[in-house]
Structures are given as C-alpha cells and as structure tokens.
C-alpha cells in the first residue's frame, strides 16, 4: 500500500508543468481559443516530441506502455492549464479503443497518433440518448464487405480537429439494447459525412455529425460485430477517470487563485480573507478538493478491477467530482465578486470548464443510478 509517486512519475509531472508554464499562461490560452483553428497544432506536435501521445500504448505498438496513473498525472496538469488540445479525446478515449483493436488496426492507426499526425474523436452521443451509451438510433447495415451507416451524432468533442472518428452504431437489436452495438473507424472525409463545427462554452470545439449512407469497410469494425457495449463502458470508465484528473487540476488552480485573491482584495479595511464566513467557504472548497483528489486516485487505481468494482469506482468518483466541481466553481466566482463575472480573468474559464465536466459522461443523477444498479 503506497500513495507516493515514483521518480519517473514526478519527472513526467514536471515536464507537463514546464510546458504549461512556457506555453499555456492565460493570455496564450486565450489566443489559442480565439484562433481560427481553436487549438495549436504546434502544441500537439510538442506532446508527440515529449512522448505524451504514446503514453498508454504498448511498446509493441510503439508506445511507452504506461498505465492510468501516468495518464492521470498528465491530464491533471493539463487541467491546471485548461489545455484545449484534445488529449483525453484522442489518447485516452479513442486510444483506449485502439489499444484493444486488432493488430492490423493497431499498426495502421496508432503510429500516426503517436507521431501527432492524426487527432481522433469519439462520436457516441445522440440527441435522444442523454447519457445512455446504448441508446442508439444510428444504424449500420452490412452490405457485402461494407457497412452502411446512417444517423446523427451530437456534440462530438474535438471532431472539428479530427482526421478519424470512432462511431458507435447499432448493427442489430432494439434502440436501447445492450446487444447489437458495434464500433467503426471512419475517415472524417468519407462521402456521406457532414459536420457542423462550432465552439463550445468552455473553449473547445465540437461538431454535429450527420451520417448519410456512409460506407465503411468491415476492416474498420473494432472487435466483434454487435459486441461493443462492454468495451464502450470500459473505455468510458477510463475516460471518466481521466476527466476526474483534469477536474482536480482545474479545481486546484481555482482554489489557489481564490485564496490568493482573498488575501489581497481589501474591503472594509481588511483583506476579505479575514472574514470568517469566506474562510470557512474556502476551507470547504479545500476539503471538497482533497476528497476529489482521493476519489481520482481511487478510480485510477481501480480501473483494472472486475466489472462491477470498476463501475462503482467510476460512478462514485464522478459523483464526487461533479459535486466538488459545482461547489468550487460557484464559490470561486462568488468570492471573486464582480471580478469573477468578467471573461477577462481566468477564474470564469475554470468555472466554465468545470461546469461542463459535470455533464461529461453523465451527471450526478446518472451516476447515482449506475452506482445503485451495481451496488
């Protein structure tokens, strides 16, 4: 039993911290977010140079073969910088699928991810499905060696930047069946795909994706036809674990910034941090943060456990993170007073990102239901 980080892990953390310090102060981030592209390809290449894009892939696939703890470290530090480059989307989520794909697929796709050439996005959500990963109306019908995909995927994070998409679709079964779900790798420029790209409130980009008779070769099916549900849940749990890490990164900055602000901002002749009510609010923010760190460690340490243990861990962690994200985010704004309301300060942007994380892969109610059903 040990909760300390290895030297190698600490080194990794320092690397990311330097990157944030040099390339991701608030002004630089604002520039990136407001740019035409919405992300900075140079950063992505730098991630590749630093080896970050190969972190979770096996050495056989050209990666570094690291586990969830290393991903947690990277993403936590990214969270501190509100990094918009789609690391979780491409590396944790799509990477999570790909590292379990066939050898042929792995050798075809992973190298271009590691080299920073290709960005990937996971298109799973549909308007009617809310957080149910199995509620799919997107259909894939087999036609010879191909599948023909039709459907609508909404709010696909990072899609505007992606070369490839992983799309969940129904090959059989009823709308909400667990059985009959398949995963496909699609070129974004395949004929029949149309995207509507837009910015998101937290400084990222996403797309609405319409699939009209998109032809995909069966070589691009991940795993067995109709059997993807379990894999999707697993990868989503891993993504939740990463999102939790991103959240604690953001929370830590928000807490520090708030404490710092309250030490310097004076009202009624003293720093507002001298008012006991604000002190206790910040103590509660701190406690929420510490509990969130704990749950983030917990879920990342339990990702390899068997199904129900892992599911409970992921849902439990997400419940805590959602609660803390709301409390810390809202409190930080409140304690900054008017200044918390301007878009010119970083505080609001952390708040907005945390608000969106509450919703990502399911909110509190959703995960309490999941938790209850696994308990």
């Amino acid at each position, binding site marked *: 039993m040990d909760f300390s980080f290895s030297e190698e892990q600490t080194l990794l953390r320092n690397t990311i911290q330097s990157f944030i310090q040099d390339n991701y102060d608030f002004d630089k981030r604002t520039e990136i977010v407001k740019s035409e592209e919405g992300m900075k390809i140079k950063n992505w290449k730098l991630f590749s140079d630093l080896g970050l894009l190969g972190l979770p892939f096996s050495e056989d696939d050209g990666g570094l073969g690291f586990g969830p703890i290393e991903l947690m470290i990277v993403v936590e530090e990214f969270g501190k910088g509100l990094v918009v480059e789609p690391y979780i989307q491409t590396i944790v989520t799509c990477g999570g699928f790909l590292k379990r794909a066939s050898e042929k697929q792995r050798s075809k796709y992973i190298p271009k991810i590691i080299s920073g050439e290709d960005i990937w996005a996971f298109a799973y*959500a549909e*308007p*009617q*499905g*809310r*957080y*149910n990963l199995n*509620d799919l109306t997107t259909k894939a019908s087999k036609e010879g060696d191909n599948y023909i995909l039709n459907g609508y995927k*909404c*709010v696909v994070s990072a899609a505007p930047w992606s070369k490839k998409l992983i799309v969940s679709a129904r090959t059989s079964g009823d709308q*909400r069946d667990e059985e009959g779900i398949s995963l496909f790798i699609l070129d974004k420029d395949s004929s029949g795909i149309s995207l*509507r790209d*837009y*910015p*998101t*409130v*937290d400084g990222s980009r*996403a797309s*609405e994706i319409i699939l009209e008779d998109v032809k995909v070769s069966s070589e691009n099916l991940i795993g067995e036809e109709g059997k993807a549900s379990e894999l999707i849940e697993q990868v989503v749990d891993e993504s939740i674990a990463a999102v939790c890490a991103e959240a604690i990164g953001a929370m830590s900055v928000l807490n520090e910034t708030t404490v710092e602000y309250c030490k310097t901002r*004076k*009202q*009624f*002749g003293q720093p507002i941090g001298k*008012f006991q*009510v*604000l002190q206790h609010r910040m103590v509660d923010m701190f406690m929420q943060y510490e509990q969130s760190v704990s749950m983030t460690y917990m879920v990342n340490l339990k990702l390899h456990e068997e199904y129900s243990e892992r599911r409970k861990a992921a849902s439990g962690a997400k419940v805590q993170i959602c609660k803390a994200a*709301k409390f810390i985010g*809202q409190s930080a*704004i*409140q304690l900054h*007073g*008017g200044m*918390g*309301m*301007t*878009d*010119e300060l970083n505080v*609001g942007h952390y*708040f*907005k990102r945390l*608000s*969106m994380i509450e*919703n990502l892969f399911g*909110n509190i*109610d959703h995960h*309490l*239901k999941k938790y209850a059903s696994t308990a």
Partner: protein
Amino acid sequence: MELGLSDEDLGFRDEVRDFIKKTFTNEMRKKLSLSKNGHVEKGLHVEWQNALYKKGWIAPNWPKEHGGAGFSATQKYVFETEMAREGAPRTVPFGLSMVAPVIMEFGTDEQKEKFLPDILSTKVWWCQGYSEPGSGSDLASLQCKAEDKGDYYLVNGTKIWTTMAQYADWIFCLVRTTKTEKPQQGISFILIDMSSKGIEVRPLITLEQTPDPHHEVNQVFFEDVRVPKENLIGEENKGWTYAKYLLEFERGNAYSPGLYRAVNNLREIAKDTPTGYGRNLIDDNDFINKLNECEIQIQAMEFVELRIFSALSAGERVGPESSILKCRGTEIQQLLQELSVEAISHWSIPFIEDTFANVNEPSIGPDYALTITPNYFNGRKTTIYAGSNEIQRNIISKAVLGL
C-alpha cells in the same frame, strides 16, 4: 387572514392581463427569450416603457403627484405579479426606481422639473455610478473624486459594473468631495451628463460572452469631467445618506412570480427531454424531486412576499427583513438555472456568441436550450450585485437578530 382578491382587484388584474396581451408582442417575447443576459436592445426597452407610460403605469412606486400610477398596495402586488408571470420586461430601474426617488426626496425644484418628466417618459436613459474597481461591497471606500472648482466640480476616476451604460444619457454617481476620517463622510451624490467631455465607456464582457452592444456592464472612465454645481443632489458630503435611502428602493421586489414562471418553463422542457431510458425527464424521480423542492421553496418565498406586502399595506415599515427576499430569490433562481443546464445535458455545451444574430441555419439543439447555459453563467452575478448575499446576511444578523 384571507388569500382571495376582492372583485375590484380581480377587475384590475384583468385589466393588467389585457394590457400585457396587447402590448407584450411576440417579437418582444422572442427577443427576450434569445437574450443571454436578460437585456435586449435599447429600442425595445423604450418601446415597452412608452406603452406603460401611455397607460399611466410606468411608475407604480411614484407618488401620484409626480406621475405615479396611484395603485393601492394590492394593485401594486397584482401588477407586479402579472408582469412577472408573463415574463414581461422590467422597467429599467436606474431612472425610475433609483435616481428618481432620490431627486424627489432630496432634489431642488429645478432638478425635479428638469429630470423627473424625462424619466417618466423614458426620454432620458440613466445608469448608476456606484461601484469602483476597489469598492464593491465596501462602497464607502470609493475613490472617484469631484474637486470643487467654484461653479463646477472636476471629476476624475472610474466606475465599474455600470449596467447598460452604453445606452445612457445620464449617470448618477457617488463621488468623493472631501477626504475624511470616516470614509462614509465626504461622499456626494451628483448627476453627470454622459455626453460631457472626458467620459469614456468601455464594455466589460462577462462569463456568458454577450458581445457589444448587447453586453450588460461597462467601465466608465472620467478624466477631468466638468460637472456644473447645480447637478449636486442635496448637500455636499451627504451622499451616503441619499445612497442609503435609495438602497431601500432596490430591495423588496417580488421574486416568486418570475420564479414560478421559470419552474414551469423547466417543467415543459423536462416533458420534452428523453432520459435515454425510454422515458422523459418529467418521469425521472431524481430530477422531478429537485424541481418540486424548488417549487416548494418558491411557494415559501411567495408567502414571505405576501406577508411583507400585507404588512406594507397595513402601513407597517418593512426593513431589513426584505434582505430575505434578496437572498432566497437569487439563490432559488440560481438553483433553477443550474437545474436547467442539467436538464439539457449535451445541449448545454455549444457556444453561440450572438444569439440575436439572424442566422439562416437552425440553432444547435432545441431552441429553448440556446440561452440556458449563458443564463446560468450570467446568473452568478445575482448573489454578488446589489449587496452580495454575504452582505445581506450581515444586514439581517445585525439589524434583525441584533448580533
């Protein structure tokens, strides 16, 4: 104890409903529903206020002699309730509810004559110059100064969070005229023509990122602005007294009718939102419990309001108890905004900069989702402004509980 309205008051209520039906056009409703911060362009505000003016209802809180509506206490409550129930725009408060009462109480006859009619007819748009970058909750520490130059004041400094200053013709300001030991002393209340030389208005973009000119707040800079002495209200260095008087008018709105409206809207959304498990959100026990708890809180609020209203109409003075309304009203509103974001799940994510812009393509997600996240972000202000809720609790603690 009696809940019902008299026949006469019921008649009045019908008159109000009738007015709203005729005057609160679909175009206005649409525009308001597209607003990320609750404000629309100046023209629409003016149009609405003109209609009220014509009807004689523009100033329910003014005394009849100055052009007030002459409502009874019950009528005032009915009027406000009906307006909020329909989501009709509130009148812009800076002229009608803020500077006007001060002018009436402390202004000279010339000032009354010069300013009040134009406020009543919305010919002149006012904004409020109170907060400064260093003085938020602690107004008494303000720095913006007005030096006595014989027949005018020379004003230098800056005011922040000035709502809709981009439209304003006049601003009423608290300025420092004397340096004293006690910071509350030495503050004066003056009126400044916004077209004066040396004034600059800069937009402040807030969390929801409403673009200029629809943005909500500004910073106003004063550089050697000359203000004629006749624009001083009351006595020099007594501004704090007038400001406190004014604060009484800021509080005591009825929140519940608007909140009922919001909770009903959200109920409609929940009927329309699939859970992903074959039902709609309205059938989701967890969500609906939160919504119903909210509604119960609103009802508790409504009956606090009714009790305050009843005390007022019985001629009692209602003081700091009304801080309860500020606290609960804004906190329930924020809760509803939170729940709304929760309801629309994925659709909370897309960012639309200018929701008023005439886009040819349909909006991303359902129409009702368009402004929900911006309203949530923007709504965080309500527990900060007009005396933060922490300050309100301090007030209750001191003035009601005697702590």
